[in-house]
């Protein structure tokens, strides 16, 4: 394979990996603070993408023409709305089920995901069909050999890196981050140290859902099309990625996200069978990985009290 093709596939893989990693980080954050899987995460992403689209349509009808303003407004609307939605979900559905078996939380959020997905399909105007998503980033590109480096992809990738670095700094350098990590490590001790447990949980869910909204916007800008089903797929992939990496570990989630994208790209390009089998290959590898490392590549530190 020549360099150009290789670079092209690497770039595509990186874009996919960034989206998966953003979703996976959300899963791992939720799991960190509450030890729950919130399966509606992917559908929060869908709702976020559709919120952005609705904002765009609204601005257009109001006659705003500047793409920068539009993009900024979409970003703020989607992220803000999803942060609120995430906190509401945590308050109304996840926290009340704390005493119930973990399976119940998994199921209630799966069903909530169905409700969100169906709501988009039924109540967004013509929501059952794929919707075109506006192209708002500059589309210039630089050609190196037969590798076409597009400016918009580079911007998105850089923005993704910024978000992840920012999250990392927030978790490691601020008081809020310290509180989140304390709750994740030991809820009881954190409470006795004066950490407001439920506020931290709500904030964590808001942050994770805002990340999903960001990923949803990125997904729309990358493919220039969104439909009500994107969240289900991205949610499952993000969940798998978080699991491969090892739940509760931010680095694990990022690693898992990029690894899943790499598996898909390799499955599509380098393997002898048809590229249609890329998902089959990726999920098969996930299953094999789980057999090999049952608690993920970077396992959470776990000691079982009997």
């Amino acid at each position: 394979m020549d360099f150009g093709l290789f670079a092209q596939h690497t770039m595509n893989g990186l874009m996919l990996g960034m989206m998966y990693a953003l979703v996976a980080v959300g899963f791992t954050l939720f799991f960190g603070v509450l030890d729950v899987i919130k399966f509606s995460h992917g559908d929060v992403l869908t709702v976020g993408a559709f919120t952005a689209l609705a904002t765009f349509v609204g601005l257009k009808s109001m006659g705003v023409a500047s793409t920068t303003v539009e993009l900024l407004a979409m970003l703020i609307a989607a992220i803000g709305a999803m942060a609120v939605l995430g906190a509401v979900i945590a308050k109304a559905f996840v926290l009340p089920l704390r005493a119930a078996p973990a399976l119940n939380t998994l199921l209630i959020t799966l069903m909530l995901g169905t409700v969100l997905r169906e709501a988009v399909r039924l109540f967004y105007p013509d929501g059952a069909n794929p919707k075109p998503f506006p192209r708002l980033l500059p589309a210039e590109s630089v050609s190196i050999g037969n590798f076409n480096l597009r400016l918009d992809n580079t911007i998105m990738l850089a923005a993704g890196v910024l978000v992840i670095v920012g999250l990392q700094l927030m978790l490691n350098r601020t008081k809020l981050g310290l509180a989140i990590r304390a709750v994740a490590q030991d809820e009881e001790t954190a409470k006795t140290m004066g950490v407001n447990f439920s506020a931290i949980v709500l904030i964590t869910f808001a942050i994770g859902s805002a990340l999903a909204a960001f990923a949803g916007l990125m997904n729309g800008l990358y493919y220039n099309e969104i439909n009500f089903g994107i969240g289900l797929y991205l949610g499952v992939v993000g969940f798998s990625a978080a699991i491969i990496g090892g739940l509760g570990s931010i680095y694990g989630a990022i690693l898992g996200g990029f690894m899943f994208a790499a598996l898909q790209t390799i499955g599509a390009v380098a393997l002898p069978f048809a590229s249609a089998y890329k998902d089959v290959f990726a999920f098969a590898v996930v299953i094999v990985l789980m057999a090999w490392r049952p608690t993920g590549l970077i396992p959470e530190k776990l000691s079982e009290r009997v």
Partner: protein
Amino acid sequence: MAAANGGAGSVLPGVTAIALATAFLIVLLRVENQTAIISLLAFGLAAVAVANWFGWLAPVTRSFAERENALDAFAVVAALVVAAVFHEDHFVLLLVCTVLLYIVATLGLNIQFGYAGVLNFAGASFFGIGAYTAAVLNEHTAIPHLLVLLIGGVMAALIGSLLLLPVLRTRGHYAAVVTIAFALLFKTFLEVNDVLGGPQGLQVRSMKILGWSFNDNFQIGGVKLSFYISYFLVSLIILVLAFVLVRRIERSWVGLNLDALRLDETAACCFGLDIVRWKVTAFLLGNFLIGIAGTLFGMVGGFVQPNNYTFADSLILVSILLLGGIGNPWGVVVATVIVVIVPEKLQAIQEYRFLLYAALVMAVLLFRSEGLLPRPVRRYFPGWRP
């Protein structure tokens, strides 16, 4: 057994409950008018609430607990009555067959989820393995179709055994991802694979037993019967066998071991239970039942395609189990009837059915997380009351 020991409980409340439920079901299936259906459903809900308020449900529960064998027989009679009433109606009989086979599949899931605590979010995939087995074997071989049913179950168990290693090594959420990944892998594989018909799917040849073709209408004594009656009878026989099997397992020391395993793996291990052995047994046996149900369902529908066996369908199976009450076979029966029949009848809400239905499950989880019919405390001795 309970009856032999003095017959403390009366069979009457149970029989009355079954009779009323059957009558309600028959009326519901017969009515076509949407307003009538909605008022009928509301009436049903109100009736149950009123019965609960006056404490009429307690004797029913007791009679089910103490005279179960007799009531099982009455339930079979009730199913036969429903089929007899609708003996000419293809659509209703297909619906009834669907209910019966979904119950069988959910019973299989119940062994895994409810008794052994082994997560399986790929129920629909194993269901699909059975259906595709039926499509391929009926088309290309002359294997007798009753044997195909068994082979379908065995295939589901065999392909399930590929997942054994990861399922055994992982726990909790990590175990969930194994079966979720399998569910997605399976559907994608079916879609991209040319041999098995791709996204269009395959035709399934109808069932034939000893030269009796199941896809012909027939007459007995001048009464015309729909061809689905034959499928209905086979489904009912399979359901009865599966139900008896699940009940026997639950009551036996095998069930006791599985319960111990689910409630506390470490403790079970300390008491010398072979964890691996029982998890493998539960997982394979459950998949076997799901596979058999899927095989017959493929033949009833006459058609298989990947879109019928998605992750969402697996979730529906899990939700039925949860709605009914995990670990209670009777709960499975009631929940399947609700989940399969209500959306089919309520055309007005057909478009919104996934939405309403997901919301319903959420409400159950929030307000009655043990399900509609919670699993009763195990009865260690005949006639023993906890």
